[in-house]
């Protein structure tokens, strides 16, 4: 049984100009001990999805099942105890810690809310600080005395406090310098090896996701367009949007970067207030046909473990006409 199951989740919100479907009929599973990547550009709904799973924003439809328990509509005390299984790390190292509390208080907050005794909290906080590689005496210091990378470690320590089974990481390294990113990514991997925690890793940076995630999901305008194992998706994307993302991602190898021919995605993201009828990607897709503009594609399995939401996916195309389609990279 998967650790986390999301079934047909929808999140809508009202804006001044109409209804925005930020997350539209999303379903996926996260197994124990795995890292699932959630990739997409701005407006795709990945952050909103993460917050909906954490019950920080209300879902208007669908189910979230955590460790066998339906948490979608829980309230009060039952929700609080369910929350101990699932925690979150945030993007902004400067905004995710309360500037008026010292680090020890911050890391101990989940324990305090859960009702632990002061002494137990102190011991656990010391243990957590060590786990994330911060000096023990740092508990008395304030967030502004730490660098971005160190603050992110404090956030990780806080998320680990109650030994959750899954941590939702919302762009945890996007705001950090390159060399610090590597430190935090390595730390997350080490922690996973030591504790078996699962990650739902939300990011717009494909190279980071490909590095750390076992499986990944690609989203566009609130819907899942492709999912599968990282190396398979990376090497042979099935959805034209995934192919476009991979083509656009800069590669730190000048010879390769300049020799490859690639077709860049043109145009702009459609307004979420007025999404295209039919496939959301049809307005920009180089392979779009009549059916795409009229009929929304359904997420279907194409190989073991791979799913794609496309009427004419690339794998099918290349099987039918092996020479006609240029693959990514």
């Amino acid at each position, binding site marked *: 049984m998967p650790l986390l199951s999301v079934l047909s989740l929808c999140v809508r919100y009202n804006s001044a100009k109409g209804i925005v479907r930020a997350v539209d009929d999303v379903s996926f599973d996260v197994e124990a001990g795995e890292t699932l990547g959630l990739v997409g550009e701005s407006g795709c709904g990945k952050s909103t999805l993460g917050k909906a799973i954490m019950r920080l924003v209300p879902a208007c439809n669908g189910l979230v099942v955590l460790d066998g328990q339906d948490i979608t509509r829980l309230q009060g005390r039952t929700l609080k105890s369910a929350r101990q299984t699932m925690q979150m790390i945030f993007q902004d190292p400067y905004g995710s810690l309360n500037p008026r509390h010292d680090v020890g208080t911050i890391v101990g907050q989940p324990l305090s809310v859960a009702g632990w005794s002061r002494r137990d909290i102190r011991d656990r906080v010391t243990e957590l600080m060590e786990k994330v590689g911060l000096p023990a005496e740092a508990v008395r210091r304030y967030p502004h005395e730490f660098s971005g990378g160190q603050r992110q470690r404090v956030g990780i320590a806080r998320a680990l406090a109650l030994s959750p089974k899954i941590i939702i990481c919302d762009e945890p390294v996007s705001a950090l310098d390159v060399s610090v990113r590597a430190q935090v990514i390595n730390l997350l991997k080490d922690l996973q090896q030591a504790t078996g925690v699962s990650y739902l890793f939300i990011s717009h940076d494909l190279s980071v996701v490909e590095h750390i995630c076992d499986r990944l999901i690609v989203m566009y305008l609130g819907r899942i367009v492709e999912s599968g194992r990282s190396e398979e998706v990376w090497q042979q994307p099935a959805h034209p949007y995934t192919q476009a993302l991979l083509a656009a991602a800069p590669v730190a190898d000048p010879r390769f970067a300049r020799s490859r021919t690639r077709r860049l995605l043109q145009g*702009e993201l459609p307004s979420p207030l007025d999404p295209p009828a039919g496939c959301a990607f049809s307005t920009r897709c180089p392979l779009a046909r009549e059916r795409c503009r009229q009929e929304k594609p359904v997420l279907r399995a194409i190989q073991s473990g791979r799913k794609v939401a496309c009427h004419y996916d690339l794998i099918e195309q290349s099987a039918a006409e092996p020479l006609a389609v240029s693959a990514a990279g």
Partner: protein
Amino acid sequence: MAPELAPRPAPILALDQLQVSLFTRRGVLPAVDGLSLTVAPGETLAIVGESGCGKSLAALAVMRLLPEPPAKIVGGAVRFMGRDLAALSEREMQRVRGRDISMIFQDPMTSLNPVTTVGAQLVEAIRRHTDVAHGEAVNRAVELLRRVRIPDAERRLTDYPHQMSGGMSQRVMIAMAIACGPKLLIADEPTTALDVTVQAQILELMKELQATSEMGLIIITHDLGVVAEIADRVVVMYAGRKVEEAPVEALFERSLHPYTRGLLGATPSASRRRGGRLVDIAGSVPGLAELPAGCAFQNRCPDVFDRCRAERPMLAPLLPRRSAACFGAEKELSRDAAIVGA
């Protein structure tokens, strides 16, 4: 200029030991410490470094847009087409900005004036430096928008910045920057705030514009992927100092400075090994007020030895068209030269 440069066209920009200091409560901090570099016509130079390395301040110094109370140019020269920009008066500098040298910034949403239309801002940019009537300026504005591939250019003239997406606003910024055909364009993290597909479009656009006009381009970034895509030569900065310079392929193939190697190791797409550990550079960048004597990188360098702590390594031309400020690199290369066959 470094002696190893073979005869090339005269550079449009030459920074000569530029020094910019920050005057703060904690003392005078050397935010840019002896930076020298050149940009030739039609060439793309990338300045790479992490936050606090001084790359943005160096660019602002060239444009004479430094925030004057804390920052100030305290040494060196900024030679543009032979003239020292640091010595110009503010009026003279205003004639240079926008016409001969232009700059675009990271966040297009905050760089454009939110209360006037895009067309009005473009026309203003055009009329500031060229003596044309309003009607002609409007025509040129439409041309510019088409050149930066904004669809439906005429209608866009009456849009306000908030009605445009991030990518579109950045194109408008680029249009304003190239309006008067500058010889040099400085782009400070132009794609950092944009989505990856938009980033690719913008980089492609900049390359195209450069190819048709012999314009020099300085791109400031922390992303080695962007450097690999677009740069001809690369300057790596650390804690206000230049630590390495090389042509782009040479830099990625074999970097000389341990910091550059660390950056490459920490970049997932560069390491091309799925699932392996990323190289992380231990520690963090020292604050400008706490720079150690000797090499600024000594406390994080995996190959540090005594000389690094005692003396500050100066940039040395270690290979043709390449330089690095590292004693370790010097030692290694002289050893290689000895092996190869003195």
